[in-house]
Structure formats: C-alpha cells, structure tokens
C-alpha cells in the first residue's frame, strides 16, 4: 500500500507538489538529499546515535494494566511521551536538521500547533547551531504557553500568527510564505506527514522508528503481534510512524481524528472530501467553492482541516480505519490515565486513548497498542485555567 519515493510522492491519487514555482527547485533538491541520505551509512549511523543519546530512544512499550483492567482489555502504551522534549515530534526534527545541514542550509523555519514540533525543532537547531524561526497561531500561543517559553529559552524566534483561525493552518501558511521568500538559505522543517512531496515520505520515514520499535518490543514480550494499533491523527505523523511498522501485518490500524465540540471539528477523513491544501492532494474540510473551513479541537496539534496524503489513501483502501473522538471524551481519558497509571498524556494522545476505551468496550479482551505520542505538561495551565481538569 505505502508507495515509495520513486513514485514521485503519490499515494494513489493523493500527494503531489501543488506549490508555487519558486519552491519547486527546493523540493527537488530536498528529494535528492533525502534519497542520498537514505543510502548513506554515515548519515544513518549519525541519526541512530542522536536518536539514542539525545532523543533517548528506544522508548519503552509499557503495559498499562490498571487502565486495561478498567477498560476490558490489554492496553500497551508506546511511550513517545518519554522522548527528549516530550513528544514524537523530535524523531522527525533531528532527522530533518541533519538533512538541512547536508543541504548547507543555515536557517530553519517550522510551524507548530501544540508547540511540541516547535520545541523539538528549536532543540534540534540549538544542538546543530542553526537559526530557528517558528510560526505559531496566536490562539495556540495562548493555549500552549509553556511551549512558547521553552522555544524562547532554546533560542528560537516564535512568531505568533494573527490571521483567520489563529491556529495550525495559519502557521503553515506563514511558514510556507517564509520559505518562498528565503529559498536559498532556509529549510522548511515541516512537522507532520503533510505538505508537498517529498515531505510526507520523509516525515513518515523519520517517524517509522516508532512502529519498528513497537513491533519488535511487542513480539519480544508477547511472542505474537497485537490485535490493533491506535494513534491520534492531526496531520498524521505519529499515526503514520506507528502504522508503518504494521502495514504488512494482520494488525488493525486505527487513526483517531478530533471531533471537537460536535459542531465544529477537525475530522477531514470522516467528514471531508479530497482537495488540495498546503501543496498536496488530501482529504480536506472545505465548502462547495473549495474554501477551507474553520476547525476546532481542544487539542492544538489536531486542530487542522487537512490530513496527510498517505492516510487519505489508507482510508480509501480500507487498510486503516479512522474514527472521531470529541473534546470531552478525550478529556475523560486524559484524567483516567493520569489517575490510574500515573502518566499525564498530551491532550492529542488522549484522543487515541479514548478510542481504545471505546474499542475495548465493544470488543473486550483485545490487545491494543496505543501510541502515547506526547506528555501533557504543556496542556495543564490552559486546561486548569478553563476549569477543565
């Protein structure tokens, strides 16, 4: 199902390079650098060393026994929350910083929603001595304040984006515009499996360490494969990283989109239609004229009207199934994991947890791996202020 970079970044009809002409040369250059790096043992071993000693991999695969007992099955957590900077985003950030260095770039721009990708990028840039500019929706700056402070401390410049919905979509618009204006010295370090080819492939490859580790760890522990893996889907990078390890197996793949408050949501695979946004054909929330609709989710990292092209193809083929979990259900899972397991999950990851509960309720006794994509520290001030915890 998953195509390789050789098919020029198409996943079925999805993907492509729908970008202004100014960026085409950069995308070609990036594709070549990525192909060369993939075949370069020195690059790969440097990346492995960084993942081990800077990021802290491998991350544990942890059986959450009390919550499993509560929900009626076995819940195994892939602990991406334990990585350096606290979310899976760092896997991709360190990989792309190595690519940027290979390309001779001196400046990195990134977008961020929850701030986890921004923090990861800022940390990876600090380590590599690269200038770092992070675009972040003004709404997200408010609701993920601890991450803004962390980025500043790590030496990144955070630029709040005030336009329109003041969230992740707007931040990506601004990051792309920055890149169009500075194509020579700047690398755009995109944070999910979205954007024009080769980004969805590059980010999947850098995140696939999650699924590879999880599969190996599960097999070693249990001597068999799980029944299902579950991950939340914003742009879809933690989900794609997890799914990549199990695509060829007889294992169910469940992606969980944000249902918001019921009225306004961020669930394009469930309620959208194919279109082009941010350089790729994908499922989108749009009106009849092709205007992109506003979204809402309590999780800044899921609050996005599009989704990666590979997920769009996996949805159509039926190889993966995509579900919707709303704000309240996610918050219930957030509290439950904190109380019952002593682990405070990111509000994004809580969407995946909530679906695990629902799935085990319907089919008790299943063995499921939930990708705990990040930790919830960033969410506490805003959730507490609003009396939501």
């Amino acid at each position, binding site marked *: 199902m998953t195509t390789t970079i050789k098919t020029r970044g198409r996943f079925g009809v999805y993907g492509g390079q*729908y970008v202004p002409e100014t960026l085409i040369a950069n995308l070609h250059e990036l594709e070549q650098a990525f192909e060369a790096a993939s075949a370069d043992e020195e690059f790969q071993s440097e990346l492995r060393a960084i993942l081990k000693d800077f990021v802290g991999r491998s991350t544990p695969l942890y059986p959450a026994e009390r919550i499993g007992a509560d929900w009626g099955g076995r819940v195994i957590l892939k602990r991406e929350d334990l990585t350096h900077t606290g979310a899976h985003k760092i896997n991709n950030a360190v990989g792309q910083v190595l690519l940027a260095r290979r390309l001779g770039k001196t400046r990195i721009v990134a977008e961020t929603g929850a701030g986890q990708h921004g923090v990861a990028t800022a940390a990876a840039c600090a380590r590599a001595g690269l200038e770092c500019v992070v675009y972040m929706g003004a709404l997200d700056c408010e609701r993920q304040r601890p991450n803004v402070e962390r980025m500043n401390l790590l030496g990144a410049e955070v630029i709040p984006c005030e336009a329109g919905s003041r969230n992740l979509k707007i931040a990506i618009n601004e990051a792309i515009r920055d890149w169009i204006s500075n194509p020579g010295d700047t690398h755009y370090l995109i944070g999910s499996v979205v954007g024009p080819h080769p980004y969805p492939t590059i980010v999947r490859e850098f995140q696939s360490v999650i699924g590879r580790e999880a599969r190996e760890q599960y097999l070693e522990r249990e001597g068999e494969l799980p029944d299902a893996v579950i991950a939340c889907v914003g742009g879809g990078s933690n989900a794609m990283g997890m799914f990549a390890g199990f695509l060829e197996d007889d294992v169910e793949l469940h992606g969980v989109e944000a249902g918001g408050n019921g009225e306004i949501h961020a669930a394009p695979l469930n309620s959208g239609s194919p279109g*082009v946004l941010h350089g790729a054909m994908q499922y989108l929330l749009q009106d009849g004229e*092709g205007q992109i609709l506003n979204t809402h989710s309590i999780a800044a990292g899921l609050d996005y009207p599009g989704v990666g092209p590979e997920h769009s193809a996996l949805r159509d083929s039926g190889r993966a199934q995509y579900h919707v979990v709303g704000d309240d259900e996610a918050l219930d899972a957030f509290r439950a994991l904190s109380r019952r397991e002593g682990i405070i999950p990111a509000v994004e990851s809580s969407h995946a947890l909530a679906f695990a509960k629902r799935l085990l309720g319907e089919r008790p006794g299943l063995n499921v791996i939930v990708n705990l994509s990040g930790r919830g520290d960033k969410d506490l001030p805003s959730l507490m202020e609003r009396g939501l915890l």
Partner: protein
Amino acid sequence: MSVHQLEAAFARAAEEGRKALMPFLMSGHPANAAFESNLEAAGAIADVIEVGVPFSDPLADGPVIQAAAAQALAGGTTLAKTLDVLQRRRPGPPVVLMLSFNQVLAGGVERFVARAANAGVSGAIIPDLPFEEQGDLRELFASRDIALIPMLAPTTNEARMRAILERAQGFVYLISVAGVTGARDAYPAGTIDYIRKAQSLSPVPVCVGFGISKPAHIEKLYEHAEGFIVGSALVRGLERGESVARILKPLRAACDAALATGTQS
C-alpha cells in the same frame, strides 16, 4: 474572449511601441459594487486585466492581497459571483483569472473551464499548479480557448524554463523575486539576468509581476519584458481610497514611455 484576444492585446501593444500593463483587481474588493466599477475603470487603461478570486489560504500572497481576499470573502464573494460580473461587463481588455487550484477542483475542473469560458475569460493563473501537476489540464483549458498561464521564478533552472516555455500559451508570468506578492523597494542582483534569459527563450510575451509598484521598476526592466503586472500597489491604493485611474496613470505612462525616455532596445 479567448487566448487569441490575449495574444492580440500583446500584439497591439507591441505594434504601438509600448509595453502591456496588466493591473490586478481582487474580485469583491473593497466591495462588490466598487469592484465592478474598478474593473471598468481599469478597462480604459489596461491591456489585460488580472482578476483574483479570493481564497481562504493563498500561499503566494503577501499581506496586502491576503487582507483583500479576506475582506472579499467576508463580503460573500464567490467564484460564481465573480464570473457573473465578468459576463455582464462592457467589452474591454481580456481578463485572466488568478485563483488557487482547490477553487478550480472544487466544482470539477471541466465545469470550471466551461463556466470561465462562458464568462469570457481568456486565461487562468493558478500559482499552486506548477508545470508537472498540470498534466492534461493545459489541453483541457485550451479546448475552451483559455490559456493556462505558465509561471517562472528566479529559482527555475534553464532546463526547466525551456520545458515550461515550450508549451506556453498566452503569455508567461515571471515572478520577479523569490517571495510573495507585495511591493518592494528594489530588486536583487540577478533579476535582470533571469528576466533576460526567459525573454530570450520565450515564444510568448513575457510579463513581470510581484513587487512592481512604481514607474522606476518598469523603467528598469523595460526592455526585458513585454508587459508588467501591478497587484499589491493597486490594491493598497484602493484601500487608501485612491481611484484606479490615479494609481495606474504613472504606471501606464511608464509602460508607454519607450520612445520618450529612449530606453527601448
């Protein structure tokens, strides 16, 4: 209107020894009625008119045109309303639509092309539909006599330039600098070389856009292009309450000034 009208407009300008002036107006900006009268006013001055259909997330636009698009969308501007306005306008210079690919896709590309043709549109500029993604869309547009206008950027290498220009129809849109739309004080070194290269390779008229805001810009690039596109400067002037005629007059004069200033090659 058709791609032939577009070619004729450039041919006429060339015959008369001047450069084509192509102002950009955002549909529905600053308001629907004002857009219609501005379109007419521009028709009296321009050789070709570029009409933007507002999009929620335009990647290639700077703050001025973004704001105009947001205002137009808030005022209820749609593709359908834009095409209505174009259909009922008085005869004037050929119109080229500028919009994002998702707006073309939304109702189906074939339907878009048919509607645009019925409204008398001569060409389409779709900044996020680069050469490789156009596939057989060029032929589809051509089948209704609409030119899918190719774009070049300073980052386009020569081999790619050749491939793009080989299939060019109508005119070629040269993005003057790596960047988004918006006024600039000066152009970086190398701009003229890039424009000159494109002109030497192009079988169709070369038009320069992005950042053309004052006569000095046109004077500097005069001999290297057949036309100049003025977007943000016009939109910003309209925001300030100036008239189309007042904003375009000095730019028109710069386009006409070949013999007077002796800069013609």
